[in-house]
């Protein structure tokens, strides 16, 4: 698009005096703002509506999760760990139990492994659907979120049935899952997956190829590969810029090694590519969930967790467990001194790294694009501030 400056801008250059000089305006987006999904704060410097500088200011929701990990035993840690990214509680729990099981040298029953994989994928669907609804809403399309929430309710019903929770499932335990899957649950989960797959095109047809949506997202907020590498951006955002990296395929955990994980990538790196990646990932996750369901049906009956001692002490050592969370790489660096609490557990959350890159992306865009970019960075404030 060619851009021509007319009016006061062009005149001001010709005059060159101070009379017509304009002053930049500092605009604080947040910490309370409808499109920051919580309390992220962006300090924008504006020339008219054009952004000249952007600084993400984080920490308004800092709860000291890492420090709290050090004074809780391993069962209690799970409760804390599933809270930072409240849209993917199950995936957050996974990293912790994998790290602890690794240090304990504990083998998890095969049914638990498959059930965990299934629930992780359902959780991914839930998280992605949230953003598939909220992103169009930020661009002014008010309908897709209702479709997205209809699908979320469908999946949430089966998650709720097994765990009792709608957000913070707390279904993982060190050594397996809390309970066995209820009778007939696999069929209900299979039906939920089929329903979501059948109705997903509603969202797609409504918004993905809409002219205005394309105009607002194509070529906006382009993120290149180098910047992604420098800032440690991961997950769907990185894959939308052609970074073909997905832990489920490249460093398989749980049962992903036995599953054909299709990694969705795009090369454009703009807001539209990020939205497309998310949409396609939902389809991939639904397929993976189906594969897990099929496997779970075939598995012979057996335990779904390990008996744990009353006081769970993890032997001295350290390990790093990372998982492909819905929003990107989520890693826990666990250091144990052989006590019943970790000596240190470092949390590497996806959104924290992903959001830092905003200062590179924003300048040069308009305030309206700011919302398009911010929404397409798919973050959860709890995941940034921990």
């Amino acid at each position, binding site marked *: 698009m060619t851009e021509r400056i007319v009016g006061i801008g062009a005149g001001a250059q010709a005059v060159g005096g101070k009379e017509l000089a304009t002053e930049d305006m500092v*605009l604080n987006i947040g910490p309370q703002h409808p499109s920051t999904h919580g309390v992220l704060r962006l300090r924008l410097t504006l020339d008219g509506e054009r952004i000249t500088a952007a600084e993400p200011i984080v920490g308004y929701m800092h709860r000291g999760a890492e420090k709290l990990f050090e004074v809780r035993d391993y069962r209690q840690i799970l409760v804390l760990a599933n809270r930072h990214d409240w849209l993917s509680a199950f995936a957050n729990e996974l990293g912790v139990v994998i790290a602890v099981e690794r240090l304990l040298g504990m083998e998890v029953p095969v049914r638990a492994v498959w059930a965990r994989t299934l629930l992780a994928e359902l959780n991914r669907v839930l998280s992605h659907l949230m953003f598939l609804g909220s992103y169009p809403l930020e661009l002014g399309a008010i309908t897709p979120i209702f479709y997205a929430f209809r699908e979320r309710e469908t999946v949430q019903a089966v998650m709720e049935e097994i765990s009792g929770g709608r957000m913070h499932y707390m279904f993982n335990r060190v050594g397996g899952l809390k309970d066995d899957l209820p009778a007939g649950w696999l069929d209900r989960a299979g039906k939920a997956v089929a329903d979501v797959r059948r109705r997903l095109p509603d969202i797609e047809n409504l918004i993905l190829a809409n002219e205005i949506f394309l105009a607002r997202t194509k070529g906006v907020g382009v993120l290149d590969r180098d910047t992604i590498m420098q800032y440690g951006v991961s997950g769907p955002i990185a894959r939308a810029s052609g970074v073909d990296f997905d832990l489920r395929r490249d460093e398989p955990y749980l049962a992903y090694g036995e599953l054909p994980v299709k990694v969705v990538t795009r090369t454009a790196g703009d807001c539209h590519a990020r939205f497309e990646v998310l949409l396609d990932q939902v389809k991939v996750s639904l397929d993976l969930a189906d594969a897990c369901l099929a496997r779970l049906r075939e598995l012979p009956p057996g335990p779904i967790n390990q008996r744990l001692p009353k006081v769970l002490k993890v032997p001295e050592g350290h390990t790093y467990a990372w998982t492909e969370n819905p929003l990107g790489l989520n890693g826990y660096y666990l250091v144990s001194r052989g006590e019943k609490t970790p000596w240190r557990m470092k949390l590497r959350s996806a959104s924290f790294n992903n959001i830092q890159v905003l200062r590179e992306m924003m300048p040069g865009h308009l305030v309206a694009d700011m919302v398009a970019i911010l929404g397409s960075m798919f973050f959860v404030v709890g995941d940034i501030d921990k």
Partner: protein
Amino acid sequence: MAEVLDLAIRLILIVAAFLVLPLVIGQTEHKVMAHMQSRLGPMYAGGFHGWAQLIADGVKFMQKEDVIPAAADRRIFAIAPAVALVPYLVVLAVIPVGPGLVGADLNVGLFFVLAVMGVGVLGSIMAGWSSGNKFSLLGGMRSAAQLVSYELPLVLATSSVAMAAGTLSLPGIVEAWEWWWLPWQAIGLAVFFIAGLAELRRPPFDMPIAESEIIMGPMTEYTGIRFALFMLAEYAGIVVLSALTTVLFLGGWHGPVLPGPVWTLIKVFALAFIVIWVRVSYPRLREDQLQKLAWVGLVPLALLQLAITGVVRVFTA
């Protein structure tokens, strides 16, 4: 005496329409939007399918504290909602709903309508400036930028109709209307309606309000009854836009079987339904994209319509 009474009745009817129609359209929006989004919408207020929801909202707004920010330019801030609302009331006075059924038959009705509607946007700019809030200021700026883009296509499209009818009087235009004007003035109809949506700041052209970007634009700092007046202005705007489109392009009261005023109302509500439908299905444009749409799309189309009208007029005359 009879004349005074006649005038009084007309004015009372206009004020009544002005108070009732926007509420009806607002309620329709609640319900239509809800059903398009697989929800129910208001169900409780008033009993039957939440028919009294907007009345309840109005009562609530009236009870709220009317806050004026310390940094605001108080006088401008206070009168801005009125400036936004009153023009639509005035416009309603010259819109004919049936043969002879018009508040005031001005022979320059079209000019009058366009001039008065142009005032409405000032309310938004005034609110944006006087609120002493950066988001409001951005919203006001966007309103002003939007004004530049839709006003010209709006005027060009209406002048095509005036040319076709050979009069500027609104009842005159409806009387001159024939069914084949529909295809003849189709481009003008589309241009007028789209530019009108931009004038009303309705989605997909609601950038001045854009709640996900600049909170509520010029209305950010408004509370209570003043905020309600802004909302009323928006829905009154829908009534006026739909009524004007009906009168100028859809033949007003013309229609078979049913009496004229009923036809006018049917057409108005059909158009209002489209306004709501568009809101449900489209995202929001960006300010510069609207300007591009206006100058690259609407203005040339309106000029083309003007040329077509001129040619047809010359050959049929």
